[in-house]
């Protein structure tokens, strides 16, 4: 993440967010640098960068949060509260806390006269109420458009406030790619907490960047595996603390559980602090967990140990997988999910002997190209939809593809009567060698008695015209002129 990196993912080179077609065509076009940038002329609601920015930081201990926005922008905090509560229960916390989040409640008057006074008041209120070590201040569409100068307020108020003030610029209109919100959070951490200061390295310490959506069971599984290699983990930023963040620059290497999480930040850590990183895949399924571990081995110089571990884990896990494989072999599956998880799930399809029929994922970039080339080598041509949300396209595709199993967000495919398994489960395991088993059993359970999902399909009314099912699902993706092709 160089000084010039804005965090806005649309500005990255060779990254596409509005795209559709067959996997072989997309891979071929990407290779030949001939994908045009596009926009949807009709779209359904996407996600807000503020959701990701807040989710990344919300569970930090000793932290408090101010959302400088109208009331509604914190709507997602009811989910954050739920994740945080369950996260604490899983971690054995006795006295369950709520996240300390205050919303300044920008109203009609503030839109005319500015909301800076409200923010200043909120900063002092939060310090007085919670005495946090650190206060994150999130901006919003409204605060930015009315011109509130949050950076200057932070600079001024920091003189009289003990808590460290950190502004995070995550106004939704800056980017339609909600993963940009992760980058906005790391840009703020880098600028206001790490500040370029170096410290002595700890030989066996690795930064493990993980978003909120990684369950505690998954954290334990990953830490178990890395513990077997003698690696100490600085698990960041979920349930971490200011000390944990400050320790980032003491690590010998970095890696991430999710591909779109901290990817640019790890580049910056290498450039500024000489910390090498491993950026491979999400550790879901046997193949991906192997790749992920080998990536870490390389930067931690543990190649021999990792190969031994992989061999032992394979011996342990394959007989159990075989049981699941007997039941799932040959089933056609459609996968939809976030960037990391969708490709990870697509890869585990192979573990269970299933056939990949289609894939929906939010971005097509160099990383995606590597995955698609691999998937193309083991599956025949499958359909790809590069979309964030957009169930109208997905449902249109599913009606054509008619998969036996759907892995992804349940409500859409469920309405078509397709047995569905959720892969984004922040409370239950999905990762590592053992997480794979949970996923496998969940799919098997769905197929054993699908009567519930069949009943849903029989009575669900979809809000789409009959004529839409006959249209090209990618009809509303409008490509720019030939001359506007992005420089791949």
């Amino acid at each position, binding site marked *: 993440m160089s000084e010039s990196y804005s965090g806005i993912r649309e500005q990255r080179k060779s990254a596409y967010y509005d795209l559709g077609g067959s996997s072989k065509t997309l891979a071929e076009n990407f290779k030949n640098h001939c994908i045009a940038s596009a926009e949807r*002329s*009709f*779209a*359904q*609601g*996407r*996600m*807000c*960068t*503020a*959701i990701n920015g807040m989710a990344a930081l919300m569970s930090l201990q000793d932290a408090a949060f*101010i959302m400088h*926005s*109208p*009331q*509604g*922008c914190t*709507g*997602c905090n*009811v*989910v954050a*509260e*739920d994740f945080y509560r369950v996260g604490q229960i899983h971690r054995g916390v006795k*006295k*369950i806390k*709520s996240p*300390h989040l*205050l*919303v*300044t*409640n*920008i*109203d*009609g008057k503030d*839109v005319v006269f500015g909301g800076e006074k*409200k923010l200043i*008041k*909120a900063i002092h209120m939060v310090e007085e109420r919670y005495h946090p070590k650190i206060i994150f201040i999130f901006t*919003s*569409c*409204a605060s930015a*458009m009315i011109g509130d100068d949050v950076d200057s307020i932070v600079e001024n108020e920091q003189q009289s406030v003990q808590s460290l003030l950190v502004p995070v610029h995550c106004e*939704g*209109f*800056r980017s*339609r790619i*909600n993963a940009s919100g992760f980058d906005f959070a790391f840009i703020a951490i880098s600028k206001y907490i790490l500040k370029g200061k170096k410290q002595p390295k700890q030989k066996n310490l690795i930064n493990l960047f993980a978003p909120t959506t990684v369950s505690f069971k998954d954290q334990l599984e990953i830490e178990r595996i890395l513990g077997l290699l003698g690696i100490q983990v600085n698990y960041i930023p979920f349930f971490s603390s200011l000390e944990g963040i400050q320790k980032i620059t003491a690590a010998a290497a970095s890696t991430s559980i999710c591909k779109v999480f901290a990817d640019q930040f790890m580049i910056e850590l290498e450039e500024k602090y000489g910390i090498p990183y491993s950026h491979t895949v999400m550790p879901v399924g046997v193949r991906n967990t192997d790749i992920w571990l080998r990536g870490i081995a390389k930067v931690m110089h543990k190649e021999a140990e990792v190969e031994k571990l992989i061999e032992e884990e394979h011996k342990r896990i394959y007989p159990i997988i075989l049981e699941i494989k007997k039941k799932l072999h040959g089933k056609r599956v459609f996968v939809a999910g976030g960037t990391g998880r969708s490709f990870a799930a697509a890869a585990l399809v192979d573990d269970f002997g299933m056939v990949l029929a289609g894939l929906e994922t939010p971005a097509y970039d160099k990383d995606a190209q590597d995955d698609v080339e691999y998937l193309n080598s083991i599956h025949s041509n499958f359909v790809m939809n590069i979309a964030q*949300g*957009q*169930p*109208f396209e997905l449902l249109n595709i599913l009606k054509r593809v008619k998969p036996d199993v759907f892995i992804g*967000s349940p*409500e859409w495919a469920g309405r078509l009567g397709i047995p569905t398994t959720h892969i984004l489960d922040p409370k239950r395991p999905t990762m590592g060698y053992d997480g794979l088993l949970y996923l496998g059993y969940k799919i098997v359970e769905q197929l054993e008695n699908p009567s519930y999902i069949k009943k849903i399909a029989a009575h669900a009314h979809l*809000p*789409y*015209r*009959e*004529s*839409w099912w006959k249209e090209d699902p990618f009809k*509303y993706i409008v490509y720019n002129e030939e001359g506007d092709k992005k420089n791949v």
Partner: protein
Amino acid sequence: MKGSISQPRFTCALGAQNTVLAIPHAIPVVHAGPGCAATVNTFTQAGYQGECYAGGNQIPSTNTNESHVVFGGEKDLRSEVEGAFKVMKGDLFVLLSGCTAGIIGDNTVSVAEEFAERGLPVVGAETSGFKGSSYVGHEIVVKAIIDQFVGNIEPNIEKGLVNVFADVPAQNPFWRGDLQQLKLLLEKLGLKVNILFGVTSTGVSEWKNIPNAQFNLIVSPWVGLETVEYLQKKYGTPFLHYPILPVGGEESSKFLREVGKFAGLDETFVEGVITAEEKIFYDYFVGTADFFATLLINLPYELYISGDSLTTFGITKFLENELGYIPRGIFVTDNPNQKNEEKVRSIFEREFPEYKDILSFEPDSEKIKLATEEKLQKTGRAVVFGSDWERNYTKASGNIFLYSSAPVNQQLILSKSYVGYQGGLKLMEDIYNTMFEGKTITGQTFQEKLGKQ
């Protein structure tokens, strides 16, 4: 709107997307930042109510980007609506503006008009988040639909037809069940009910029929009052303002009696309905006498409640008036503006003259915690109604917790309602059954609790 809030019970004016979704086969088109529709949807999923017909991630949205902010976004909104008509199947499309559109000055109402002139069912409403709470947004949208979709027509009064304005959909986690039960109650009087929202509504045909009602019924201390006043002005429809949610025997009977009188129904007929309903209700009610006598020393008798004024007053009325509870803390969280706050207070004082000092208006649940947690730790015989924000510390204090308000993440709510005679009985079951679950009052006697202090 008051100042900062840390643990909110409602969302912003764009919460009105749920008002649209609550009308069967109506579709909101959100002209706002990417994620506004999803964020509002997240908050309004209290009790896992599901996304209605076209909600959740299916809501069409312009997903405002930087170029809209600089150059305006009306052009993209038009393209969005054109697409929505080709792809989606709906009886009514309501264009809603978010903060970005509101600040740029994009006019959703005039864009909607362009489509309406082509004979398409399109309505526009200015619901930027900074305009206020979900309650404010709800009234803006209801008025916009009446003005732009129902329109200026000459009423053709149908005797016995009543429009009901009772609830803010999704905001109240029990809204579906509540509206269904209110409709059932009113149908007992032989009335034809335009319930307008939810599972028992027939959709836009009910809305088209609004001007023809004999009268409007508003069941709420304040939300909807502006709407019925407006309808009186526009179509000359009289309205009955019934401020308390009817829960249990006495209040349900009073409700039927007042509605019957306002509707000009035969008094003997109405009293006949009430007698029959009360017979059943009080048969069950009296049947609990043994249970009460046996477990009296362990039964809760103190009441703490927080939530929308509508639900809060309704539950309090039944518990105070029929079950012998002592209200200890009443917190109204729906943040009415100053004018309405006076109105809500005067209703409370009229209904509960002995307890007028314990009413607070508090939209921030963290402050409710500060006001109640310590007291709860000193008692073991309270029942606390509230949201997820109150659940943890209430349960930790060994008292009974029940949901009455959003957010709700730890219960699936389908047709559940405390409205009417049946609702009162359901409420009794909920309170006293919770006693037998886990470490609540039965696991820790009154004396043990006192000994702990």
